[in-house]
């Protein structure tokens, strides 16, 4: 039974003598390639030009600080558990007296590493984070010559205290705000 009209019968016809010369076909081919000479090239000259990326692009991670400049991360390990690529490792430590201006809560991450080669930039870590600490930003991870240089520690991940070093994640944050506040309350 014929379901669609999409199938086509292939006819392999004998070439006539003009076609056997191949010269018309070669001329057609040449005319096709010469047309491309005048077309705009698709190249993006990368370091000078960059491609436009989505406003919610998932690039290099950032560990956020709160408005007082204290690290949000409490080293709960939920991001590491959520990570499907097992790219995140951390070591927790207890906050000492006099470190209140550095860490928001009593526990903090003494060591926090993300292997950028393992990471698949899925964003599940920011989904899992209960403390608003980790976000993916629109920055692209730069290249490096050794594998070791792709393991980013806290020095690369935590944003700096001063305002100029802040990483804007407002656009990514919006996604979660929309998730958190359904348009209609589920229970009345």
């Amino acid at each position: 039974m014929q379901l669609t009209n999409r199938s086509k019968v292939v006819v392999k016809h004998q070439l006539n003598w003009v076609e056997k010369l191949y010269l018309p076909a070669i001329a057609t081919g040449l005319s096709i390639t010469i047309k491309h000479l005048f077309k705009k090239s698709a190249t993006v000259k990368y370091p000078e030009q960059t491609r436009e990326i989505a406003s919610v692009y998932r690039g290099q991670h950032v560990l956020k600080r709160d408005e007082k400049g204290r690290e949000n991360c409490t080293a709960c390990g939920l991001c590491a558990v959520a990570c499907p690529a097992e790219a995140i490792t951390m070591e927790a430590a207890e906050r000492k007296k006099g470190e209140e201006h550095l860490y928001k809560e009593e526990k903090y991450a003494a060591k926090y590493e993300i292997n950028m080669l393992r990471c698949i930039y899925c964003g599940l870590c920011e989904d899992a984070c209960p403390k608003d600490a980790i976000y993916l930003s629109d920055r692209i991870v730069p290249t490096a010559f050794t594998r070791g240089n792709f393991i980013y520690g806290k020095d690369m991940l935590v944003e700096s205290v001063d305002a100029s070093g802040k990483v804007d994640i407002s656009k990514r944050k919006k996604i979660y705000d929309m998730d958190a506040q359904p348009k209609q309350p589920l229970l009345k």
Partner: protein
Amino acid sequence: MDWSLLLDKSILIFIIFLISLGIAAYATYGERKVAAFLQDRIGPDRAGPFGLLQPIADGVKMFTKEEIIPSASDKILFILGPCLFMMTALMTSAVIPWGKSFNFGGHEFHLQVADLNVGMLYIFAVVSIGGYGIMIGGWASNNKFALLGALRASSQMISYELAMGMSIVAMLLFTNTLSLREIVDGQAGDGNLWNVVRQPLGFIIFLICAFAECNRAPFDLPESESELIGGYHTEFSSMKLGLFLFAEYINMFISSAIIVSLYFGGYHFPWIDGLDLSQNLAAVISVVIFFAKILFFIFFFMWVRWTLPRFRYDQLMNLGWKVLIPLSILNVLATGAWMTFVK
């Protein structure tokens, strides 16, 4: 001994040598640019403005690469191969008329190194020796891919030189000369058309054979990167490889010059010849015209390379022996009949 003649020729040889090398160098750049544009890319643009210093960067790279001579190779022949190929590539330019002659205060300066009365035969002879460069290089490498490439190159050259020679024979029937300058001058003036009009079939045969002689795509079987990993120059490295690659571009330049001289009126152009110009100005313009035509054909070589796929080996032989040679013989017969009965 006429010293002024010797000086004239030495200067001319030196200039042609430099121009050949310069054009070959920038043909590599042009090839990459043309390839890029035909494929909607940009091509090399990092070295200098528009990448214009790319050939120099490539040359420096070639010179500084490690020189490897395989221990199982025949060292003398291994070195001789690329030298021979390069030498013959440069030698061909001797009989090409580059333009009308200059006149400096009564002293005639001919833009042709040697106006041999057997110019075309000289070119065929030298080009055939060039085949030895590839053959020797491939054989001395002691490598199966190199040997296969060399065998392909030599059999291809033999097959296509026949048809090429026959297409020239047809042209000789009415030019009555083998001297390139006389052939070129025979295509200008009243009632004289470019030979491409008088010999269209001969031109197509000659063009196809020129592609095959230059080992250019679609006839690049001797190298064929994808199947023979470089063919005859598989084992070559550093500047010896550079010489092979470079000589190929010089060959392309010279064969474009020959095609233009034989079929496209050389340095002549209709109605520009009719202008009443001083001798030196006319000479300059004729050289410019000649090089413009040559550059078009170099572009054509590249254009074809980035359009057509490579021939299969049996197709190559079929085309050479079963199509081109009968056609060229037919062309000779037809031209002969026309010369005898019509003219």
